[in-house]
């Protein structure tokens, strides 16, 4: 084969691969979108079995109309009685226009559309920091705090446990290996559980770390001091998340690597004279990359769900705590809205996972 032909073949192969991955991505996107839609629809169904989503909608309409009436100079001269009548009339009109007195099926589809576009309505009792009542804003304001804490913890745990697991798989039966194996059951308890203990020890008893919250009150003006304060408040939550997750991770990966390092091709690599590091990289990590990525994504999913109680225990101002507050205040729009947001986040995670999978699994590449 001449060099030119070779190059042309290579280029074509690359284009083919991209086309395949592209097709795969699009197919997965639609399948996932369908799954998200169904998931959110189910959420709405559950929420609305008691007619709650209807209430949210109706409340919003009522409020809108009330604002409209009060802003309209034409209606300023009306008495309270007349104004009320006008409001009822307009509300009824609006409800009919929006099809709120249509059969449930059609209504629920309308809600689905709202949910999918993240039009989550207005909260009943809660407000965002900026004063808005919009559920979307309330949630989006709180999202960064959750991402900061859980993102940091997750990345920390994931890479630390991967690193140590590789090390441990080479030292099977050593003291540290047996230590980690013995401690693996600590993952039976969730992070918030350890959080309570840590707070008791370090905040209540020793008084060297804060009880909770994200930053000192009042927060320092200087951005560096602010960042340090946040970091200080992150210590206990990160510790709690580490204790409840890292030993199991290390154990699982170490077992995983043990199994995969006893594969025949790993022995061949050793026979061929590859260095340990080369073997680790190309013969243990590369083949197991799909599984690592999968569990990465699945881990993210688990982390989202644990946030509710965890943030409550540590009084961390994220969406988990918002959810908890909404439960306490019985603020239905926020509750439903947060659930929808969770479903979305899960879907995005799964979707990203699928794309990454497409790139690293040769069986998908080749098709």
């Amino acid at each position, binding site marked *: *084969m001449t060099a030119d032909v070779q190059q042309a073949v290579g280029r074509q*192969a690359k284009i083919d691969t991209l086309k395949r991955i592209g097709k795969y991505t699009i197919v997965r996107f639609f399948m996932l979108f369908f799954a998200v839609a169904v998931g959110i629809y189910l959420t709405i169904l559950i929420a609305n079995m008691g007619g709650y989503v209807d209430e949210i909608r109706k409340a919003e309409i009522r409020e809108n109309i009330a604002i409209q009436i009060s802003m309209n100079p034409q209606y300023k001269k009306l008495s309270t009685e007349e104004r009320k009548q006008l409001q009822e009339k307009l509300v009824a009109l609006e409800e009919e226009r929006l099809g709120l007195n249509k059969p449930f099926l059609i209504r629920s589809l309308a809600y689905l559309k709202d949910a999918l576009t993240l039009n989550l309505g207005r909260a009943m009792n809660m407000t965002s920091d900026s004063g808005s009542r919009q559920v979307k804003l309330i949630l989006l304001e709180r999202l960064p705090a959750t991402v900061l804490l859980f993102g940091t913890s997750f990345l920390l745990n994931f890479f630390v446990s991967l690193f140590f697991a590789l090390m441990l798989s080479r030292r*099977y*039966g050593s003291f540290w290996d047996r230590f980690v194996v013995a401690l693996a059951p600590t993952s039976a308890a969730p992070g918030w559980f350890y959080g309570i203990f840590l707070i008791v020890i370090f905040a209540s008893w020793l008084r060297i770390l804060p009880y909770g919250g994200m930053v000192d009150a009042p927060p320092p003006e200087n951005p560096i001091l602010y960042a340090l304060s946040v970091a200080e408040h992150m210590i206990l939550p990160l510790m709690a998340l580490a204790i409840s997750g890292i030993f199991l991770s290390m154990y699982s990966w170490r077992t995983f690597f043990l199994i995969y390092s006893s*594969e*025949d*091709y790993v*022995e*061949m*690599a*050793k*026979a*061929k*004279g*590859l*260095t340990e590091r*080369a073997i680790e990289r*190309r*013969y243990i990590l*590369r*083949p197991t*990359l799909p599984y690592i990525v999968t569990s990465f994504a699945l881990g993210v999913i688990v982390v989202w769900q644990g946030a509710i109680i965890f943030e409550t225990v540590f009084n961390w101002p994220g969406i988990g705590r918002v959810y908890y507050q909404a439960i306490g205040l019985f603020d239905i729009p926020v509750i439903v809205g947060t659930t929808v947001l969770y479903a979305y986040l899960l879907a995005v995670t799964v979707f990203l996972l699928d794309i990454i999978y497409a790139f690293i699994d*040769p*069986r998908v590449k*080749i098709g």
Partner: protein
Amino acid sequence: MNDNTLLKLEDLVLYFKTSRGEVQAVDHVNLELHKNKAVVILGESGCGKSSMAKAILRLLPRNVGQYHGKVLLEDFDVMSLSDEEFRRQVRWVKMSMVPQAAMNALNPVLRAGEQVAEPAMIHLGMDKEEALDLARQMFENVGVPVDFLTRYPFELSGGMRQRVAIAMALITKPQLIVLDEPTSALDLLTQANIMNVLKTIKWETGTSYILITHDIATSSELADEVAVMYAGQIVEINDAESFFQEPLHPYSQRLMASVPRLYGDEEPDFIPGRPPSLLNPPTGCRFADRCHLRFDKCDEEPPTFIVDGHPVKCWLYEKDHQAVESAATGTGDAS
């Protein structure tokens, strides 16, 4: 011992630790291999022959119990090398391996060509382009179409994979290739092909082989010498012709008797019983309780006697023959 000796194993021992005790897989093995010769290590499943490959190539498992003896490559004991020295000086430079066909010895996420080229990059200092070029040549030598360089192992048939493995073993032009059941998982036609490839390579490059197998028929194609292994010990070493005509050790005799013949009316025989466990090998001759020629001396472990220059581990040859402590001598040239 002379200039023609490539490899000499002296008292090679490899035991494994298991939860039930120590498995004596390779029990004081002595063997000699000459340049451009192929010695076949013949034995049934569980006799420790695969462990032999591991012992020679220092591919020790996690639960290794004992590992000692001498592995003399051109008179230099490579056992004395550290792991890193061994990796750099011996692995694939002097000795390479073709694994069992049934194993998944190829990395599923790397392309075939890359894997074959790897040793060239590591040991011959080539860059990727050069190494792939060399790999291409190897593919041609073993009969694999060149566009398979960019394929992944799961796209190849069993026979193709085995050829790729041979190409991989050849690329650094080692003096010795250890082949562990290279054709046992392949169909007969492919087996014949692979055997031909091996013969051609031996003829063209002067490589020596240690072929480990239970398949008497295919081994007879390639063998210059046959070493019979039983229960972790070498019980007979003979040149191929003599062996197939007139095996010396009772076990070898029963083995040959069990091979069905194309011509003749004799029915193939079988050996009753099972080989002993390597966990607790019996004292005395390990073949004794299955041996048709057993007598009372067999309760004691026999030393190795030299019969016409060939080592045999059996009391039957005590009379008139010299016993040796260790060291087996090959055929042909005077020792």
